[in-house]
């Protein structure tokens, strides 16, 4: 038991800076996403990683559909990347008749942003790449 405890402590001391860095990165992402959410035509976003998920949508009735759509798009991109050697997937855009979805992975965070069709995705991507 003592041995186990020590190893946990050792792990904790090593893992701490990484965890802090990750928290800060997620926090930056959240800040950027909140700013993006205020852009004209942006409906909301879904941010998830292995430990947490946040959904910010203007229309709460669509949460489940949008969440499934988001994860399906990201899963499909992984499958196709493997199948056709696409390389590192930069982004996925699913364009509907009324709404489009921009999905991407930043480190271990999976993001989907929902917006009207005429919103400029490039502007959003530039914003997300800001530190």
């Amino acid at each position, binding site marked *: 038991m003592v041995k186990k405890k020590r190893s946990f402590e050792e792990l904790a001391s090593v893992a701490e800076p990484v965890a802090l860095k990750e928290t800060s990165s997620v926090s930056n992402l959240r800040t950027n996403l909140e700013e993006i959410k205020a852009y004209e035509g942006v409906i909301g976003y879904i941010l998830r990683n292995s430990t947490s998920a946040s959904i910010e949508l203007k229309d709460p009735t669509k949460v489940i559909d*949008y969440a*499934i759509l988001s994860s399906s798009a990201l899963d499909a991109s992984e*499958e196709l*990347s493997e199948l056709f050697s696409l*390389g590192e*997937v*930069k982004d996925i855009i*699913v364009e509907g*008749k009324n709404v489009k979805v921009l999905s991407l992975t930043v480190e271990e965070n999976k993001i989907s942003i929902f917006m009207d069709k005429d919103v400029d995705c490039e502007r959003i991507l530039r914003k997300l790449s800001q530190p």
Partner: protein
Amino acid sequence: MDSEAYTFALKNTLNEIRNVCPDITNTFMFRENCEIIAGDENTSKKAMTRVVNAFAGILEKAASIGGVESITIEGSNRRVNVSHISDTYFVTIASGKADMNHANTVTRILIPTVLKLLEKICPTPLKNSSHLTKKRPVAEPSEEIAMEEPKETEEPEIKPEPLLPEPPVTQLLVENLGGLLVASDTVRVDGQILSQWEDFHERGKIEEVEIETFDGKTTRCKVKPIKESKYERKGTIQMPEKIQLALEIRKGELVRVKPIIE
């Protein structure tokens, strides 16, 4: 022109698109019900099935965004583009340096034109292999055979009964079927598809189907209509685990299903 000729015509068109736009490495088409129509010579059936399966989740929830018009996956080496043209999805995989404006212009003009042309020349093959099969007169196929192979019809052969049309093959997505009262030798198919098969053959109730995987494994089993409304009109086949194991397939994979007519 039968469905094979129809697929052949489309396959050639897809190959030509790759010739016109050499940066396009793979192209294929599938219907809204996830049925694969045709692919170029570079793209295997297995790869097409995997892609269709991968997109099934997106297409299922597409109603929430007003239906899918296009999907773009941008990779560091290549990109995937899916366009919704008429009632079909057209998939292209192109290298990162490809001029997508040129490629899109070519495909958006060529594909609808060829589809319209083929539908005008022969509207039936479009519906022949899908689960939207229409009732066809029993005598019609024997007339087609008579036109294509005159030598055979010249022989004074007396047939005991009219030639049956080939059973319509429908591609369906596998869903799990479980529970205490579920028979392990029975699959469940949309009642509408069963009625269409029954109408097509005018031979009463369809009680058995033949299932074929894309790996070529086949099995024959009993069939009943789907009970749960959430699986209706989704192009699915509910299958007990035992049959899935026998066919070496899993939930989410596509299979070909045709009724057994005896």
